[in-house]
């Protein structure tokens, strides 16, 4: 790998690149799923290739290939420089990068049990046991269980002198049970929806999740939803469960703090951001108890946004985003940091694979735990409200003001007690109004670092895994039930 990377780097510089970096990425994935008592997908895949990113003539170029011969690696590096020359035809100014020292390092993410070493038959056996348990509940019409293992090995070389090797193992698992009855489809998922929990760790995650132990409750709730009352519409105090709050953070904090969106370069697709530059250190984003960090360091936990160096070779950092409710930081790259006068990139440039350029992506954007005890304590301190659990739908405008979320299930809260189950719960709001209405956040015992494995951004589209730590929290006077209001 290193020989090809070095060759590409040398060729790019020889062809006129004033800056160049090369990533050789080797990924392996295993995806297993079952459906109603049978294996559904059993597949392995691997992909190896090389991408060359250059600045030449003051503009960017990138070319990538999986045809790793000496001749083709040279051709690819030369193509990157030729593309940069074409970019320069429409440049307004030369690309400038915030300074970063060259680094030589090697980092391997913690992984106690290599998931690729676990026999597939053992994985399928557990999945089919979960499946059987889910379908023991009368009224369940579909049970789906999945496991997803990835190993990502990357070598990064740059003309700035960096030579960084990183190896990450990621594991994910979850299930969804569907109950169709009387022209209505209801679903429940565990540990969360849309693929379950994902973290940068090994098969130990599967053991920690106790997939089998939760199956009876999840299946029972899916069928009970058919007898539940419709979530009312109106203005109510709400409590968001940990995983739902993780997605709320992702959409209404994580995306708007991406500096490329702020500076307009995602205008055609992902959109802009309401967090224009004058709002830094001036906007009251949330209430005084809201503290948010973007933390890629292993110390934050094994999130999908955990690494030692980003894909520009910038060391992982813990960046304060919201401090005591005040907006204080962006996610940035070397180019965007230089553009707004920051001394250094926040280290948030990440690429999906060898054939994609790095973009500003969320790392682990997390709400720090509060001081309001457990979820039970929070419910006990709420007179009248609704508790929302497990995402079902999510939508937000292209500047990240107006959002609407739905969850799989809700419960009314009356006089500090969890009351009747509610089906089809939805809530909606405006980002800063919502975060300023936060008046209670549960403590560290309820904090979970969730993984969102499917965040899309960029053209060509890139899918990225991000991390979001959250404890359940309460928000006052929020619009609920609007989606079903005729």
């Amino acid at each position, binding site marked *: 790998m290193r020989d090809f990377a070095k060759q590409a780097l040398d060729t790019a510089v020889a062809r006129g690149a004033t800056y160049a970096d090369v990533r050789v990425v080797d990924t392996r994935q295993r995806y297993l799923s079952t459906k109603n008592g049978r294996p559904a997908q059993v597949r392995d895949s691997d992909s190896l290739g090389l991408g060359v990113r250059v600045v030449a003539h003051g503009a960017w170029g990138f070319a990538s290939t999986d045809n790793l011969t000496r001749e083709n690696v040279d051709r690819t590096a030369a193509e990157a420089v030729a593309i940069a020359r*074409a970019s320069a*035809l429409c440049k307004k100014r030369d690309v400038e990068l915030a300074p970063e020292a060259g680094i030589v390092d090697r980092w391997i993410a913690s992984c106690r049990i290599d998931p690729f070493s676990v026999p597939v038959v053992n994985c399928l056996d557990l999945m089919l046991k979960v499946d059987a348990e889910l379908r023991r509940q009368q009224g369940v019409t579909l049970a789906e269980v999945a496991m997803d293992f990835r190993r990502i090995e990357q070598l990064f070389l740059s003309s700035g002198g960096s030579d960084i090797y990183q190896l990450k193992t990621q594991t994910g698992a979850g299930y969804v049970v569907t109950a169709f009855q009387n022209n209505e489809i209801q679903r429940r998922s565990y540990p969360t929806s849309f693929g379950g929990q994902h973290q940068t760790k090994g098969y130990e995650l599967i053991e920690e999740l106790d997939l089998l132990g939760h199956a009876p409750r999840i299946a029972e709730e899916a069928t009970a939803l058919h007898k539940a009352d419709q979530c009312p519409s109106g203005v109510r105090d709400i409590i968001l469960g940990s995983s739902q709050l993780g997605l709320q953070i992702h959409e209404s904090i994580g995306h708007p703090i991406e500096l490329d969106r702020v500076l307009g370069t995602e205008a055609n697709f992902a959109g802009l951001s309401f967090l224009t530059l004058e709002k830094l250190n001036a906007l009251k984003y949330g209430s005084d108890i809201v503290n948010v960090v973007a933390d890629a360091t292993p110390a934050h936990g094994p999130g999908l946004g955990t690494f030692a160096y980003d894909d520009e070779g910038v060391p992982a950092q813990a960046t304060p985003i919201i401090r005591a409710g005040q907006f204080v930081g962006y996610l940035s790259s070397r180019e965007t940091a230089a553009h707004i006068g920051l001394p250094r990139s926040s280290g948030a440039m990440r690429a999906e694979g060898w054939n994609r350029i790095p973009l500003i992506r969320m790392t682990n954007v997390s709400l720090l735990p509060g001081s309001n005890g457990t979820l039970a304590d929070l419910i006990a301190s709420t007179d009248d409200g609704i508790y929302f659990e497990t995402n079902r739908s999510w939508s937000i405008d292209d500047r990240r003001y107006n959002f609407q979320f739905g969850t799989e299930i809700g419960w009314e809260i009356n006089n500090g007690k969890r009351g009747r189950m509610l089906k089809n719960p939805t809530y909606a709001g405006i980002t800063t109004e919502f975060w300023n209405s936060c008046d209670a956040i549960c403590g560290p015992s309820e904090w979970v670092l969730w993984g969102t494995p499917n965040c899309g951004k960029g053209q060509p589209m890139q899918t990225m895994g991000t991390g979001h730590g959250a404890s359940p929290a309460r928000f006052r006077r929020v619009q609920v039930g609007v989606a079903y209001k005729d």
Partner: protein
Amino acid sequence: MKLTRQRAEDIFSRVLKYSTADETEAIIGSTAYSLTRFANNTIHQNVAEEGIGVSVRVVVGQRTARASTNKLDEISVRQVCEAAMGLARLQPPDPELLPMPGAQTFRSVDRFYPGTAELMPQARAEIVRQVIGRAEKDGLTAAGVVSSGMTATSLFNSRGLSAFHEETVSEFSVTMLGPTSSGWAKSTSPNFEALDPEALADRAARKALESCEPREIAPGKYNVILEPAAVLDLLGFLFFDFGGLAIHEQRSCLTGRLGQKLFGDNIHVRDDVYHPLQAGAPFDGEGLPRQRVTLIEDGVVKNVVYARQTARKMGTEPTGHGFPLPNEFGEAPMNIVMDGGRASIEDMIRSTERGLLVTRLWYIREVDPYQKILTGMTRDGTFWIENGEIRHGVKNLRFNQSVIDMLSNVEMMGAPQRTAGEESFEMVVPPVKVRDFSFSSLTKF
């Protein structure tokens, strides 16, 4: 190196050499793709990629599994075969697994344009330069993409099936930004010459200029004219339910509704990969020929599509819409063609006393899977119409709308056109005017 049929056959012969499975299938594909991205009136990203991959599915007893790689050296080809066989042997048998299909006959579709395959970065940059010129003429800021490339896909199996298809792809999309407004336009085609970047840039610019200083309107139900991109954005969430397996598993909104009149009399939709404005291969992920299927006729759900295993399960014939096996989803129609009418968008505006014109929609998600309630936002050009004329731009609105109800409320339609958006795969759809489209809130811009 371009993937030819001969090269694909050579790779498959190597796969067969290493596979000792009862049956063996290989999907071999390649891509060469370039994309120039601009924003703030400058090119800020400019990329190219090339890649090739082989994906091997084997059947061992009544068991199947798949393994894929982009490494084509002898050791890697052997390893990918062994991986697929190893995964298959570890599974419990599937009594419903069918033998692989034998040789098939495919209708030829020619969707390869050498000029598109060979488009150089300088040519893309020149288009961007012209678009920036159009933006700067009116003090606007342009962002968008110009892309081109080619793909080849082939499917072979040990029972004699041999399918190969290559086509070119191209895209131009642009967002024009003013101080208080924006406009957008997009087009895709296998033939880059069929795109008209200059006209699209002008259209986006005019939308940005005409929607400046947008005003607030109260949420509620309105007559709405949806341009084709907005129609596509919504329909994309409906047609994954038109698969036999989704109905069999009771996860489709058509469960219990097949043969019913679910939409208005004027709704006619079919799946037709051979339509001249469509793109894609004439075979599906199992290697069967894609068939034309009438999905909705006079508002009645006439047919859905079936993969081989689903068809066997449901006592019918496959339609050539399956995804590569093994998969959870079964099948879906991916070449939607919706009939239209004779009205122009101008006719629709003239006929509207009070209503809205919507350019595109954004971040659509399914709120209710059976009622098919969708939520999302308007984006990049939403206009208030009064007494038959566009009056002004309006701030963007959130909708919560059943797409089934929407297709029961279509009052006027225009000519169908090849349409691209960001929320769905490309389709051939018309602009439509619908009544009682439901908006629940508005945003700040």
